């Protein structure tokens, strides 16, 4: 190491002594380029996933480095998509790493004009309180003819078309047990 190796690393020296006198290729290649490799190749792990946008169900490979998603791209193994993605699917890494993503609970009190912070546990308990209160206030045991209703119409829910089957299953199961009937989904829309 030292002056000599520095000099031998000098592209002009390489031009003069190597196969690339015009300095267009081999001689001009930088240390950075020599060290370059695809970050998918150096990922810590790769998860097989599915695109979260439309229902074509394109396969995705999610590459992770140091606990962060470093790349999401099409899964060539998928017989549905053969590794291809549309612009939305191709933007999945930007989706999950977007700086606009909310990562903390936000709370707006009644008549409030600003968001406030709230602890996740507190929020969950407050929601449980409100669910139980709404359920109690609006509970219907039986109809006018005495037939069972077992329900509350005081609680509504909408969503789920980008949720997992397992999640929808638990949502429906809990709400049904709770007597909440007004559970709806993008599939209605």
């Amino acid at each position: 190491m030292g002056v000599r190796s520095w000099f031998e690393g000098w592209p002009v020296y390489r031009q003069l002594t190597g196969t690339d006198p015009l300095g267009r290729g081999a001689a001009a290649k930088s240390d950075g380029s020599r060290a370059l490799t695809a970050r998918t190749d150096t990922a810590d792990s790769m998860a097989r996933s599915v695109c979260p946008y439309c229902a074509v169900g394109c396969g995705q490979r999610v590459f992770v480095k140091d606990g962060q998603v470093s790349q999401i791209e099409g899964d060539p193994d998928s017989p549905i998509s053969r590794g291809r993605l549309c612009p939305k699917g191709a933007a999945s890494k930007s989706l999950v790493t977007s700086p606009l993503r909310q990562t903390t609970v936000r709370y707006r009190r009644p008549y409030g004009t600003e968001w406030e912070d709230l602890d996740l546990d507190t929020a969950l308990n407050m929601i449980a309180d409100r669910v139980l209160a709404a359920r109690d206030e609006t509970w219907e045991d039986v109809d006018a003819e005495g037939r069972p209703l077992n329900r509350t119409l005081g609680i509504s829910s909408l969503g789920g078309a980008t949720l997992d089957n397992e999640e929808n299953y638990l949502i429906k199961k809990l709400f049904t047990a709770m007597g909440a009937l007004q559970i709806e989904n993008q599939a209605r829309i």
Partner: protein
Amino acid sequence: MPHANALYGPLDPAPDAGYEDPPPRMGFFTDTSVCIGCKACEVACKEWNGVPESGLDLLGMSYDNTGALTANSWRHVAFVEQPRSAGWATPAFAGDPDGPAISPVTAAAGARTSTDTGTDPGLETGSPAAAARMSGGPEFLGMPGVQPPGRGSGAEGRTDFRWLMMSDVCKHCTHAACLDVCPTGSLFRTEFGTVVVQEDICNGCGYCISACPYGVIDQRKDDGRAWKCTLCYDRLGVGMTPACAQACPTESIQYGELDELRERAAARVAKLHERGVPEARLYGHDPNDGVGGDGAFFLLLDEPEVYGLPPDPIVTTRDLPAMWKRAGLAAMTMAVATAVAFLGRRR
């Protein structure tokens, strides 16, 4: 010793750039006849290469809100609306109560829009007349209402229509002017025959930008360096397909060994001609063209300039020896003139 065609003419660029026993030259064949304009290429490229946002303005250039290849858009999907036949059995709007085509007029409006691409020179505004001609076709005379009968822009109403889409990219020329003029060796030829800016080297001198005959490379403002498609050099190194080609849903962007792509492209053109698409033509495929053939070449359905491509690009360095000669002559003239001036009689 440099190859006789080092500056111009057919050449295998990787050996010429000092690679002994390089892998086959890799490239893109972009078949615009199957492009659906989805822009997956633009996004996949940005995701892989970490390319920043390039402006949030509606440009009114059909569905093109990117505008051009820039340092912040290494793939650019062009959209051209034309009142011309797409080879329909029955024209797209046959029988509909249509007036004259508006495409030339809206294209002209689209010529004037701009957005801050975050790059320099980025997206320049343009000539409305040339824009109108792009959409109106060679018959466009600038006056809706006086069109030759039977063509779309006639006063009798448009019937034919087609929507051209094309994903543009760096051409990775055999004779890459950007590379040749680069004073730092930042731009270099890879072993795959592609042309890449080395971001650890580039000092933003800007010379490459003026040298590119395709208007591809450009400078990122907050960064100062020049950026363009690398043909995903990092991916190629580990045997992967470039991000855009991998994402492309319809195989409009095909990646592979250039020789094989050229054969595939020739077959595709023949097939399209057979199927009654006489306007299909290849662009940038010919090793004898002005840049020695492009590493990324295209199948087009209209004249290159309609897509924003130069019709007959010639690498500027073709004339470099002649230029140096002229400079030498001028330098000698200068020296002689000075000598004469001083050696002349004293006054």
